[in-house]
C-alpha cells in the first residue's frame, strides 16, 4: 500500500494500471449506457426521466468521495508530513469540481420536468452548490499563491475546515424537510430501489470511478513531474 503515499512508488504502479483502468472505464461506460438506456425499466412515476439518475447519482457520490479522500490526505499530509498528500490535493481538486458540476447540471435537468423549476433553494441543493464553490476556492488558491510550501499547507487547512460541509450535504435530506428525495441506497437498511435499476446504477458508478482514477493518475503524474522540474 506504499504507493498511496510515496511519489516514486506511485509512478511505478500508475504505469502498470493506467491503461487497464482506462480500458475498463470505457467498457463500463459502454455497458452502463446500454443498461441505462435499453435494459432498465421506466419509473412508474417519473417515466423515462429517471434515466438521468444514472449520471446524477454516481457523480454526486464521487464528488463527495473525492472531497472525503482529499480531507483524509490533508490530515495525513499535515500530521505526518507526507508531501504526497499535497500533490494529491492539487491534482484532484479540479476532478472533484467537475463531478460536482456534472451533478448540479444533471440534477437541474432532472428537476425541470419533475419539480417544474431548474433550481430550488432547498438544503441538499444549496449545500452541493457550496461544495462546488469550495472546490473552486481550492483551485483558485492553488493558482494564486506564489510560495509553494505555504500554498499547499494553507490549502490543506482550508480543506480540513471546509470538510464541515460534507456531513451537511450527506444528511441534509434527513435533517431538513426538503424537496429532494431521501437517499434510496444505504447500507443499514434494504435499498428501496428495484434490482433492475440498481445494476446500471452500480455499473455507472464504477465507470465514473474508473475514469476519475484514470484522470487522477494523469494529473498526479504531471504534478510530480512539474514539482521535480521546479526544484532542479
Amino acid at each position, binding site marked *: 500500500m506504499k504507493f498511496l503515499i510515496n511519489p516514486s512508488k506511485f509512478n511505478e504502479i500508475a504505469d502498470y494500471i493506467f491503461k487497464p483502468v482506462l480500458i475498463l472505464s470505457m467498457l463500463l461506460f459502454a455497458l452502463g449506457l446500454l443498461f441505462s438506456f435499453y435494459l432498465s425499466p421506466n419509473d412508474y412515476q417519473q417515466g423515462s426521466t429517471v434515466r438521468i439518475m444514472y449520471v446524477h447519482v454516481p457523480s454526486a457520490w464521487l464528488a463527495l468521495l473525492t472531497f472525503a479522500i482529499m480531507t483524509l490526505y490533508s490530515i495525513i499530509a499535515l500530521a505526518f508530513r507526507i508531501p504526497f498528500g499535497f500533490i494529491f490535493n492539487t491534482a484532484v481538486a479540479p476532478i472533484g469540481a467537475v463531478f460536482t458540476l456534472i451533478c448540479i447540471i444533471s440534477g437541474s435537468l432532472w428537476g425541470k420536468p419533475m419539480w417544474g423549476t431548474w433550481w430550488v433553494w432547498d438544503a441538499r441543493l444549496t449545500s452541493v452548490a457550496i461544495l462546488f464553490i469550495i472546490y473552486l476556492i481550492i483551485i483558485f488558491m492553488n493558482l494564486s499563491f506564489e510560495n509553494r510550501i505555504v500554498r499547499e499547507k494553507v490549502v490543506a487547512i482550508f480543506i480540513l475546515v471546509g470538510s464541515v460541509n460534507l456531513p451537511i450535504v450527506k444528511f441534509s435530506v434527513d435533517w431538513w424537510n426538503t424537496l429532494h428525495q431521501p437517499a434510496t441506497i444505504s447500507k443499514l437498511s434494504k435499498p428501496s430501489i428495484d434490482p433492475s435499476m440498481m445494476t446500471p446504477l452500480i455499473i455507472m458508478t464504477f465507470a465514473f470511478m474508473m475514469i476519475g482514477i484514470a484522470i487522477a493518475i494523469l494529473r498526479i503524474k504531471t504534478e510530480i513531474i512539474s514539482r521535480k522540474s*521546479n526544484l532542479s
Partner: protein
Amino acid sequence: MILVKDLSIERSDKKIFENINLSLGSGKIILLKGKNGSGKTTLLKAILNLIEPSSGAIYWKGKLLKKHLYDFFNHVTFIADKTSSLSKLSVHENINIWKKIFSSKISNSQIENILQTLKLDTFVNQKVNSLSFGETKKLELLRLIIENKKIWILDEPLSNLDDETIDVIGQTFEDHRSKEGSIIYSSHQESEINVSEEVIL
C-alpha cells in the same frame, strides 16, 4: 549561551548553507558577513526557531532550544530589517507602547538622553511616517535599550545609517558587551565595530 551545531538548511530542496557552527557566549559579538541571498537572515531566523533546520540543532544553555522556547524568548531582542514602529502614531506614542509591551523599567530622562544622542529629540511629537528612512531605523534600534534583554539578534542594523550613528551604535554595542550581554548581527558593509568573531556565509 547559544550553541549552533552543524546547522544546515534546505528550502524547497535547495541548500542555503551547510554545517554552520556558532557559539555565542556572554560578552561576545558575532558578525555574520555575506552577499545578498547567502542566508544571513535565514540563519538568524533559524536561531529564533522560525525555520526548521534540515539537520543539526541549536542549544540554549545546554538544552535543546526548541523545548525551552519561551524561556529563550525572555532573553532575546530581535530587530528585523523592517520598521516595526506604527507609522500612524507619533514617536512618543510608539515609545510609550513599547515601554508597556516590554514592561520596561527605563526612565523617561534616560530615553530623552538617548533620543538626544541619536538626534531624534526634535521629532518626538511627529508621526513616524513623516520621518526619513534612517530616522525610522534609529527609532527601531531604540527598542534595544527599551527591551533591555541580554541577547541581541539584529538583522542589518547598520544599513541606511550615517557614520556618526554607526559610531553611536558601536558605542552601545561596547557598553552591552561590558555588561556581559551578547550580540549577533548581520551586515554586508564594512564598519569599525569591534567584533569578537566573524562568520562568513
